[in-house]
């Protein structure tokens, strides 16, 4: 057991829908509706900022496929895709995850917000502030190619454990 409930769930593979080297997808243990799926990086990361870009890309790819599966197998009329990034955004667990939530007409889920018109000057000042920080947006962290193993592991010749093993038969 680790200190992270969701790392443990990845280990247990309970209700697993998909997994590969980097990603694990399962039915949410705290669903909003039946079929609510969560997609997580296997490598522990408390917030999405700590997840490498290429893994975030994979999270979305997997979310999209599971979203299609939700439409086709559960007869959903919609899906919500959601990342709660930080406590103020409602993040409840110390492991970054992406939610895909099946939606139906009259499902009584309250997901949304009341839009408020913004004044032109406010938008202009926000635009400038945000643009100051977007210089590196679009430069992605790529997955490093795995080192090719050229060297064979060194042979151990005179280890007492080997002597012991050789004696066994």
């Amino acid at each position: 057991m680790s200190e992270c409930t969701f790392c443990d769930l990845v280990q247990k593979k309970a209700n697993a829908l998909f997994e590969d080297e980097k990603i694990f997808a399962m039915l949410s243990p705290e669903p909003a509706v039946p079929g609510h799926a969560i997609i997580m990086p296997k490598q522990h990361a408390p917030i999405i900022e700590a997840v490498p870009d290429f893994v975030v890309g994979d999270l979305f790819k997997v979310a999209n496929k599971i979203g299609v599966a939700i439409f086709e197998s559960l007869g959903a009329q919609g899906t919500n895709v959601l990342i709660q990034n930080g406590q103020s955004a409602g993040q409840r667990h110390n492991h970054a995850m992406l939610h895909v939530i099946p939606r139906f007409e009259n499902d009584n889920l309250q997901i949304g917000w009341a839009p408020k018109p913004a004044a032109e000057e406010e938008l202009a000042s926000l635009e400038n502030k945000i643009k100051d920080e977007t210089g590196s947006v679009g430069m992605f962290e790529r997955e490093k190619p795995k080192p090719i193993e050229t060297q064979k592991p060194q042979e151990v010749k005179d280890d007492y454990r080997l002597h012991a093993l050789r004696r066994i038969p």
Partner: protein
Amino acid sequence: MAEEEQCVFCHIASGKIPAKKVYEDDKVAAVLDINPATPGHILLVPKQHASIMPQMSEEVVAHIGMIAKQLSHALIRALKIDGTSIFAANGVAAGQRAPHFLLHVIPRSQNDGVGLQPSQIKLDEKTMRDVFNKLNAATAKQFGIEPKPRPPEKPAEKKAPEQKAPEEKAEQTPEEPASKLDEITSFLMGGK
């Protein structure tokens, strides 16, 4: 295509309709929402028209997700906030209002009144198992892999219900093949 000519967000993405663009590349434009949930609310608009996420190529889906992550970080630095919501609605039932797929990046603060906290329900074992079986098979199909059904929690107890499960499936398969995606899309496009 006609629908794209009429799509406001296609025009915003291409620049025909002016907007406060905070980022742009060959696949996506990021603009400030003029009716934001909170100040600094960004809309990520794919340049290639798509009504919902499943219509987008894998490459664009991954790209837009990575850009959302980076813009979220830019918002946190620029606005000195401590959280963001990255959100998309596919379909009117999910709260989608525009006929063009949008990924929202919304600056968050405590008690800001934005309702992006789904409620939780407790599911009984049978519902959980049924939904798992259906979704697991459909997910495997999407990935082109063999489904590996995993019993939810207590594998030992399930000998009796196990027999039922395939039966139910057989009953339901006939109604399932028709994809609802086209219907959902056409509703979005034709709506208003």
